[in-house]
């Protein structure tokens, strides 16, 4: 079984197991887990064969948005990533168009329920929950809906500690723990109702919002509509881009951190933003090797502390590199990259091929803002916050939720006071991109014990300042963006080390042995990997090999889920060591990539499997309207509703030298996700239980 049983942060729960079959083969699953994760846990990665060309398909979004992971479950085509396994379930590969399942006799119609609320918040992630709490404080009748079975949105997938400020947004706390806190906080407000497993399907012109709640259809009539719908990952076009095993970092984190399955043995990552860097770290924590990470720009766009963290553990980062192709028969087997020049053109002869079974695409996010547009069009009081409004960190999302709630209150006439200006200022800081990287400061360290702050890039973060009991860590400027400095007393309490989200604080201690200091290093990779008495290799801030050292102690701070490894270091390296190096870098094999059929091997619309070659031919024939392109090629006509390909399509026009301003955008129509026809009239099956079975997994 490809399950994660040991994890430095997450504890696998004891869960009941059930049996199901896949194409007749007997498999085991945890009760209630999604079919997709259960299949992965059983080593099955090909779920369906596309009706156009029989291409293998598997998990892609793991988020209920596409239909790449469709399987036949007990005779019904379902999205396996949002359909729980039941004991005895018969799961089969979906080959081509599914056969219409014979229906249970319909016994009656419940109709669509209607519900009136003051505020409807779509999305129970950081911004939505923060907004709902503010509304709850003033007793506004609020409904929060989220399509997942637990609140928190993407926070639930984040095992790392967050940046930002402690007072505004739980900095230094892990994402999963922040989700729990936000959820707990909502319980204090009886006017706030929460529906999980409830998907917004459309905002209609008559100002009613269609919500699919489990197997029931509800029309909600809100006075104010708040889109806290987050973001979706951008996709990339390259030959082999739809092989099973190519997917977004979000899907990966869902499999690994939510469902605790190990979807890969060896991973390659495209994209050096925070999402890609963090995904690499999460992979290492889950015991998955990371063969490399590429970034097309000269420098990774993510926080330097995230980048340094994975460099120290031995993950090679190739900047100014691009993905050339992914190869494999039934899934990814190898990945080929190449260097690019300043105009992102591949430099021939620089190709390198790596063996990898999974390729994560983490090349940025696009806001999910279509409900907001629909709500505005319908004439609703419409608001938008978090990533749906502007892509930024979760810390900023929470703050923007709070601010948005106050705009809502004003619109509802609940509170006349304006939103204080400093909130907006604070939000701007939290949304900041990383700033300058400062040079190494001169260390004046008269103390016998002191923290070394390996944090040299300006980012909005201050937990170390907040936790120091001696107030010896201060920011070097007025803004939370400035880097922290240590001066004064240190008692060696480890608080700054434990709280630092960047794992960028060490404690050097000469108290016991003035000639041979000890260095306490933060460590979040598997328990038991490092033991007292081990000889380990030390890594400098950016991964430099600092030689061997002996482990004196491993302290496990269970409450914080953080380990500290204390090593004996030579004074020359004591201030420089930041981590233990775990892996040796793997050099790729030099190989020329075969790009003869690249345009046909690159899929732009993955639902309908429309290739880059087909799109180019239409563009060259004069097509300038994405709606016409859709009509003649089916690009954008599939299950996902062009969520993945619409941005890629514009990219193809650009690559053909056509100004996107000349291109007419796709007209977006409901529904947001597919839902069975029967639910809209509340069609009831033979029995209540039967009904649940039938309608599960839209």
């Amino acid at each position, binding site marked *: 079984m490809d399950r994660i049983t040991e994890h430095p942060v997450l504890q696998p729960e004891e869960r009941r197991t059930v049996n199901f079959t896949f194409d007749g083969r007997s498999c085991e699953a945890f009760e209630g887990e999604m079919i997709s994760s259960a299949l992965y846990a059983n080593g099955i990665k090909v779920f369906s064969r596309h*009706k156009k060309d029989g291409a293998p398909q598997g998990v892609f979004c793991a988020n209920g948005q596409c*239909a790449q992971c469709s399987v036949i479950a007990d005779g*019904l*085509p379902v999205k396996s990533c949002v359909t729980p396994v039941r004991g005895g379930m018969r799961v089969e590969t979906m080959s*081509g*168009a*599914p*056969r*219409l*399942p*014979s*229906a249970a*006799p*319909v016994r009656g*119609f419940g*109709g*669509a329920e209607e519900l009136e609320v003051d505020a409807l918040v779509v999305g129970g992630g950081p911004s939505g929950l923060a907004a709902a709490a503010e509304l709850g404080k003033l007793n506004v009748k609020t409904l929060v809906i989220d399509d997942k079975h637990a609140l928190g949105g993407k926070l639930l997938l984040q095992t790392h500690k967050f940046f930002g400020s402690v007072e505004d947004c739980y900095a230094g706390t892990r994402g999963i723990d922040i989700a729990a806190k936000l959820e707990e906080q909502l319980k204090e407000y009886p006017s706030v109702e929460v529906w999980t497993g409830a998907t917004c399907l*459309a905002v*209609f*012109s*008559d100002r*009613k919002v*269609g919500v699919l709640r489990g197997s029931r*259809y509800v*029309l909600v009539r809100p006075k104010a509509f708040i889109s806290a719908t987050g973001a979706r990952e951008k996709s990339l076009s390259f030959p082999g881009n739809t092989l099973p095993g190519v997917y977004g970092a979000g899907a990966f984190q869902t499999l690994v951190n939510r469902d605790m399955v190990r979807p890969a043995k060896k991973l390659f990552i495209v994209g050096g933003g925070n999402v890609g860097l963090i995904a690499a770290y999460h992979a290492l924590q889950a015991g998955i090797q990371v063969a490399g990470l590429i970034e097309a720009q000269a420098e990774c766009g993510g926080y330097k502390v995230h980048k340094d963290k994975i460099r120290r553990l031995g993950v090679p980062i190739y900047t100014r590199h691009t993905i050339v192709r992914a190869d494999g028969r039934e899934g990814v087997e190898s990945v080929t990259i190449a260097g690019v020049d300043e105009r992102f053109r591949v430099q021939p002869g620089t190709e390198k091929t790596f063996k990898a079974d999974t390729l994560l695409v983490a090349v940025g996010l696009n806001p999910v803002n279509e409900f907001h547009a629909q709500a505005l*069009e*319908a004439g609703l009081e419409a608001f938008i916050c978090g990533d749906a409004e502007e892509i930024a960190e979760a810390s900023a999302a929470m703050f923007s939720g709070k601010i948005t709630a106050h705009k809502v209150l004003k619109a509802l006439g609940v509170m006349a006071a304006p939103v204080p200006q400093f909130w907006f200022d604070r939000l701007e800081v939290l949304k900041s991109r990383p700033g300058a990287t400062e040079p190494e400061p001169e260390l004046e360290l008269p103390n016998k014990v002191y923290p070394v702050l390996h944090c040299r890039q300006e980012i909005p973060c201050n937990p170390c300042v907040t936790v120091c009991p001696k107030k010896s860590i201060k920011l070097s400027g007025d803004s939370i963006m400035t880097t922290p400095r240590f001066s004064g007393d240190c008692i060696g309490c480890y608080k700054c080390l434990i709280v630092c989200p960047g794992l960028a604080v060490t404690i050097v201690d000469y108290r016991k042995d003035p000639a041979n200091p000890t260095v306490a290093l933060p460590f979040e990779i598997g328990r038991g990997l490092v033991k007292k008495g081990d000889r380990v290799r030390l890594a400098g801030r950016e991964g430099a090999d600092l030689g061997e050292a002996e482990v004196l102690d491993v302290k496990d701070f269970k409450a914080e889920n953080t380990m500290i490894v204390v090593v004996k270091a030579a004074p020359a390296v004591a201030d420089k060591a930041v981590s233990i190096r775990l892996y040796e870098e793997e050099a790729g094999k030099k190989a020329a990539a075969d790009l003869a059929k690249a345009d046909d091997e690159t899929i732009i619309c993955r639902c309908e499997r429309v290739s880059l070659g087909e799109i180019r031919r239409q563009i060259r024939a004069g*097509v*300038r*309207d994405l*709606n*016409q392109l*859709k*009509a*003649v090629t089916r690009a954008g006509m599939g*299950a996902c*509703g062009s969520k993945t390909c619409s941005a890629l399509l514009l990219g193809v026009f650009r690559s053909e030298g056509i100004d996107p301003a000349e291109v*007419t955008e796709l007209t977006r*129509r*409901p*529904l947001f996700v*597919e*839902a*069975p*026809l*029967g*639910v*809209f*009239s509340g*069609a009831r099956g033979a029995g209540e239980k039967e009904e649940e079975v*039938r309608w599960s997994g*839209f």
Partner: protein
Amino acid sequence: MSKTKYDAIIIGAGSVGVPLAMSLAERGLKALVLDKEASPGQGQNKCAIGGIRATHSDGSKIKAGLRSIEIFSTWKRKHGDDIGWIRGGYLFPVYTENDERVLKELLRVQKGFGLDIDWISPERVKELVPGIAEKDLRGGTYSPGDGSASPLLSVNAFYRRAVKLGAEFRFRETVTGIIVQGGAAAGVRTTGGEYWARFVVNAAGADAAAVSSLAGVEVPVNPDCHEAGVTEPAERFFDPMVVDIRPGEKSKNYYFYQNHEGPVIFCLTPQPPVWGHDRRSTSDFLPEVSRRMVSLFPALANLKVRRTWRGLYPMTPDGFPVVDFPETLKGYVLAVGMCGQGFMLGPGLGEALAAHMAGAAGEDDKAILAGFGLGRSFSGQEKLK
């Protein structure tokens, strides 16, 4: 802008304008098609669900329908591109005594025109749509020669052929005036320039009345809306277009079929009618159509709805199109008021109109236009809108 004089300027690159341009080009006439949208079929054509029938209730429409079916059904063989044509037939299942009487009366008219349509038994209905509700099923009318095609693929196929044969298209240009010289329509003014022609054809679909007022000719065309949807694809499980003419709580008839790619496409006629140009989806549609379709054909309950939309039916008072050369303005041609049947009538009407414009109208071409004059009383009622 060029002083080229065209044989015809067609306002509207939709279900009617595009096949008309193709038919004119086939006759060697030079057509310019203007549309405010960015590509062909972006008005109501893409809202059509794709049904194509000849089984109407009057001679003109029946003839135009037969002509269209000939074009759709032979397209792939003649021109190579797949437009999704399926000869699945039209089925009107009947559950009430009154509907049986109305449809059987109509049958007599339809058979009188030589149409291949007949009353079929409940057993035969169940064979055609396995799983259809049996309670009170009395049988139905079935016309096996009717069918369906993809409006999206068809309009683009017609467009490509029209262009290949010399027709010109200008998109993203809105018509701002119709130029009248010496008492005759002589050209068109748009946001992009002026164009001159012997004929100016109004094929502006839902905008027909506004466009016609630019020529000073009033046409009684007002759009009402219908909502439609498409499901995920499934393996083929029934062939005909199923039309349920019973009234619902908030609707008149509705109809659905499984198209060439496997999804079920469905459309509902709201009752009371909703007039105007609004094309935003309403919350009434899905609950109403779901209840009706699932009652009639319970297996559909499981099929997932993928997308919904709302399209306009450019209605005339009597439910018949206006296809005419109005006497009040020479050179001005009306091909409007298709009442939601522009897609199925367009190619047939296009051929007939082109023949008239080329001065080569045969008996059949004359018979097609005969029922669609602007001067008629509009007091009758189409029985099978």
